[in-house]
């Protein structure tokens, strides 16, 4: 139902790797690039991450910041053909399994864990348990806990371990000396990808949209890579922390400042394996919908044209075109 148009809307929510989106809008960099291509791009902040993806899925936005996992489950699982326009970073310690006191992953056996169920935290936990040969059913239970209340939850005596993401991780480890990180996303590099995904048809009909967004994004990436204080401070404050705090979070984030790195990640041969893992996890949790006959019910296409999952139902595409253009300086 997409056609050529000139006005586009992107949604984003607060997360260390997505703060540049807010800065793009505030600083006018997005506007500059949009003008260059004769279009208009509005970037809207939404508090509730899940709600922002839902909104995108329902068609209220042309693109949204999301992880590879949530993209697969919500828009792609919901039949909205979605393309990863930009791979911004992967979590490299930003997500962590935290235990109160000393211990190892094995100690989680028979324990209950607080996390945002069905989120990347849940996935991280599953991957962590894998490494020590445990399954989720070996736990006592997982308790769905709102990320907004995770810090308060950690402070209660009921809670023994949590899985969460930054800035909550640094908040917890920072103010609780006895907190032990059992497992974090640096152990599964490249599996939790933070993307900007857009509607495939919209992108196909409006290449200018892709170019403008990619151009603007990598201009800010360059500023960040150069350690531009003003830029970083603005992002830090917008995320409710200070420069030092934001830098600490960035340290646990593998930002692809250089578009070439992002292209490399997109073309990485590990990506299909990751996506298959993710799809299996989602299917196991029933997230792909009851109509999903198997874990590979949604097809995922990669830059080289290969497909994992159902080739007849490709709804998620990794496309390096625009990142490549940025890398080539062709924007």
């Amino acid at each position, binding site marked *: *139902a997409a056609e050529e148009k000139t006005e586009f809307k992107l949604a984003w929510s607060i997360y260390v790797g997505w703060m540049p989106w807010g800065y793009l809008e505030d600083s006018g960099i997005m506007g500059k690039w949009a003008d260059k291509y004769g279009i208009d791009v509005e970037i809207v902040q939404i508090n509730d991450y*899940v709600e922002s993806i*839902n909104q995108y*899925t*329902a068609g209220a936005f042309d693109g949204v910041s999301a992880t590879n996992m*949530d993209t697969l*489950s*919500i828009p792609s*699982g*919901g*039949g*909205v053909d979605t393309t990863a326009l930009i791979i911004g970073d992967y979590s490299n310690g930003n997500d962590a399994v935290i235990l109160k006191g000393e211990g190892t992953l094995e100690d989680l056996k028979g324990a209950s864990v*607080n996390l945002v*169920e*069905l*989120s990347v935290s849940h996935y991280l936990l599953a991957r962590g348990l894998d490494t020590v040969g445990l399954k989720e*059913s070996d736990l006592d*239970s*997982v*308790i*769905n*806990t*709102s990320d*907004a*209340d995770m810090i*308060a*939850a950690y*402070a*209660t*005596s*009921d*809670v023994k371990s949590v899985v969460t993401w930054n800035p909550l991780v640094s908040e917890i480890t920072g103010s609780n000396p006895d907190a032990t990180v059992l497992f974090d996303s640096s152990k599964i590099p490249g599996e939790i990808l933070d993307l900007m995904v857009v509607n495939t048809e919209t992108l196909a009909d409006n290449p200018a949209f892709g170019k403008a967004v990619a151009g603007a994004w990598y201009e800010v990436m360059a500023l960040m890579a150069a350690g531009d204080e003003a830029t970083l401070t603005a992002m830090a404050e917008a995320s409710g922390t200070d420069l030092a705090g934001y830098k600490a979070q960035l340290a646990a984030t593998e930002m692809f400042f250089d578009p070439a790195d992002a292209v490399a990640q997109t073309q990485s041969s590990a990506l299909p394996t990751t996506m298959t893992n993710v799809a299996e996890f989602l299917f196991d949790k*029933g*997230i*792909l*919908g*009851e109509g999903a006959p198997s874990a590979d019910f949604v097809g995922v296409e990669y830059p080289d044209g290969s497909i994992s999952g159902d080739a007849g139902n490709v*709804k998620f595409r990794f496309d390096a075109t625009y990142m490549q253009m940025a890398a080539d300086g062709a924007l």
Partner: protein
Amino acid sequence: MRLMNHFPGRPGAVALAMLPFVLVLAAYAIGSDIRLTANPADKLLPAPGTIWDTAIRLFTEPDRRSQEILLWNDTFASLARLLGGVAISALIAMIIGMAIGILPYARSGLSGFVAVLSMVPPLALLPILFIVFGLGEVSKVVLIVIGITPFMTRDLSQRVLDIPREQFVKAQTLGASTWVVALNVVLPQLLPRLISNVRLSLGSAWLFLIAAEAVASNVGLGYRIFLVRRYLAMDVILTYVIWITLLAFVVDWLLKTISRKAFPWLEAGL
């Protein structure tokens, strides 16, 4: 004839009563159809048939992992919390309300405080609740209690003050102590008010329950709705919404019936 003097006949009245429900259903069906035509995998407005299938599945098929029917587990967990919270609130409101209504000292000391308390937004205090009451069942029940008790107390104390003073004087001339007045004059007359009060508060109680379950839980109707929101399973959400509506309706109806049966003296007037 004036519009106000036109009465629908018996079948007309029934048809009219159904009409808005039919309209809403039709509007939904059309909206759903439009979206599904555009994108057959659309999750936002599933077809009524899909919802029906989902509902059947939710009510009858056990979960793969736990071999239990989640909907029933959720229902029992939520109802237990709801009724527990409401019962505790009712008890507290009853006692404080009676104290405020009967004892001038309690009135001076508590009525202002309760009025202020009833203005505090309880949701904002959740973090403190967690720390004090933990993340378990207690904090959910406590959120309900904190959420509805001040309002109930205010209302019940007003109801006590509405009891004609003549009855208090009469009871005293019959030798009743303060305690006997509370037990034999105020309490029985307050019970029907308590029930209508509970009926009024149940809406808020559901709200607080859903809010509490959304924050930290692993079973419950509110928990499930917020969980499946993560993948926009609107068929599940709508089934749960309709189910909650039905439960709320039944609870309300039960309370109304109890009130009518238990307090014949209220209706004896006409």
